[in-house]
């Protein structure tokens, strides 16, 4: 079931076209990623879905509502975590959550949310004294306190340490597993790979790829790279001639061979036949990271 649909969304700031005919859809109960380099239009897109901005053209529907016109009604059923917003420094964590709970007809239990997001010990701590990670978790808890059907998370792991990021990912999966649709804005590939069921890649205000993280990787081809340092002279043309090899690059003594299919088998067989001993052999499967850099032309 489609819960969010975006068709030909266009947004201009003055003469500058920020979104140029963006279309995608989000299904109920999935974690959908909006991926792209800074300035690609991710935040503007999500702000149009939240009713924080009015599109210049195109159709946006979230839970069947038009965010620009039925904003208040929509806000009762969605949760929003914004990039770069703060709370009052003297406001305590528990008070912030109680305050935002009072805005919703059927809020979540605040004590339970604090427990879940690791803030139970900070209930009486003032916002100004929280660490970056604690602030971030509080903002996610605020987005969830209204028991939303859709939650928008914009750069959710900003300020979290690696451990905190992984814990946050687990919690976001729990949120999805409880039936909430999650729209995640991120410029971090590992986050999208780890979390998203599907993602769209935005670049220069257009969707340049859409699908599961695996689809996105596959769409860009050349999934495997073998790199090594030959200890004896090596004829690179020999490797380039192999059937599944697409590209051979030699830089500073390191040879990098990339291609699809049995690249690894062919390369190692060739090296063995030539009696060439290699050092520092590494085999790397392409990740979304590589796919992303290729898709967006390397501005990441």
């Amino acid at each position, binding site marked *: 079931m489609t819960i969010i649909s975006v068709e030909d969304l266009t947004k201009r700031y003055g003469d500058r076209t920020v979104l140029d005919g963006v279309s995608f859809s989000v299904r109920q109960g999935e974690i959908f990623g909006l991926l792209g380099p800074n300035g690609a239009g991710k935040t503007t897109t999500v702000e149009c879905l939240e009713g924080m901005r009015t599109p210049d053209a195109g159709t946006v529907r979230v839970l069947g509502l038009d965010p620009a016109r039925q904003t208040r009604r929509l806000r009762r059923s969605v949760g929003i975590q914004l990039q770069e*917003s*703060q709370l009052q420094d003297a406001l305590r964590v528990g008070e912030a959550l109680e305050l935002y709970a009072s805005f919703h*007809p059927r809020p*979540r*239990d605040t004590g339970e949310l604090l427990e879940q997001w690791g803030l139970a010990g900070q209930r009486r701590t003032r916002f100004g004294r929280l660490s970056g990670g604690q602030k971030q978790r509080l903002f996610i808890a605020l987005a969830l306190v209204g028991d939303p059907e859709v939650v928008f998370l914009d750069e959710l792991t900003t300020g979290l340490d690696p451990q905190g990021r992984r814990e946050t990912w687990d919690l976001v999966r729990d949120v999805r597993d409880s039936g909430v649709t999650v729209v995640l804005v991120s410029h971090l590939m590992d986050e999208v790979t780890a979390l998203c069921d599907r993602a769209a890649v935005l670049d220069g205000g257009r969707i340049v790829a859409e699908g599961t993280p695996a689809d996105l990787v596959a769409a860009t081809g050349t999934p495997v790279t073998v790199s090594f340092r030959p200890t004896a002279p090596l004829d690179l043309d020999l490797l380039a001639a192999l059937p599944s090899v697409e590209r051979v690059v030699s830089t500073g003594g390191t040879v990098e061979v990339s291609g699809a299919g049995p690249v690894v088998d062919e390369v190692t067989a060739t090296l063995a036949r030539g009696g060439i001993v290699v050092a520092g052999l590494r085999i790397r499967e392409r990740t979304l990271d590589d796919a992303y850099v290729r898709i967006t032309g390397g501005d990441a």
Partner: protein
Amino acid sequence: MTTADRTANPATGRTADRTANPATDRPAARTADPAADRAAVTGRALRRLTLTEGRLFLRDPAAAFFSLLFPVLLLVILGSVPGFRKHTAALHGLSTIEAYAPILVVFSLAILGMNGLVPTLTAYRERGVLRRLSASPVPAASMLTALVTVYLAVAVVSLGLVVAVGRLAFGIPLPREPLGLLVSFVLAASSLFGVGLLVAAVVPSAKAGNAVGMALFFPLMFFSGLWVPRALMPSVLRHIGDFIPSGAATQAVADSWTGHWPGGGDLATMAVFTLVAGFLAAKLFRWR
């Protein structure tokens, strides 16, 4: 739904009824909230926001001290000087502290408007507090309502302290025209808070908000007579003060205190400032 129900699923932290059958329970839960229920939520939200801002106000010791306690403290200090309790012809038969009581009432309103509303709102905008609020089901304008309510309550308490301490400690008569005082006080608050909202609407940053608020507070208090009571001012300055909300407010409060209905000109000055500043503030206010 009971508390036990809501905590029934610790694994996901979500309520048991939802996880049991999300497809049917979700829409049912939404449609069970008619318009009346939404109005109740809005009322509850505004009460909670006002309460929260009230607490935050009291957690800022400087703001709480200067608007709540400083006026009555100044009254006590002035009242401790024996000469200031004597009635003088220069002050139209009032004692110095009797002449100062209305100024101290206006002091609270002016400091709340210029050094309260302005820096608070500009900081809230700069830090994204207003933006975060506008992303909730509650309109960001609720913050203005909450802050004005809190500040009005603070000013009323401060007024009460000045009246009570003045009466009990120094024998200042109670205001003789209470209805006039009420009208003057409400217009004084609306005009000074209106100017505060307008300044908050147009200044670009919290830093500028602080500076402009301060820069306006001192002249406002000058024309209300904090340094030279209005009765002792050169007539040119007093006439300028008639067209400034703090000057008009002080005169109107003073008249009501001594048993006269406040002058139409003073009430008009405050009404015009309220309407013009309020209108412009509403037009120009930026939430982000």
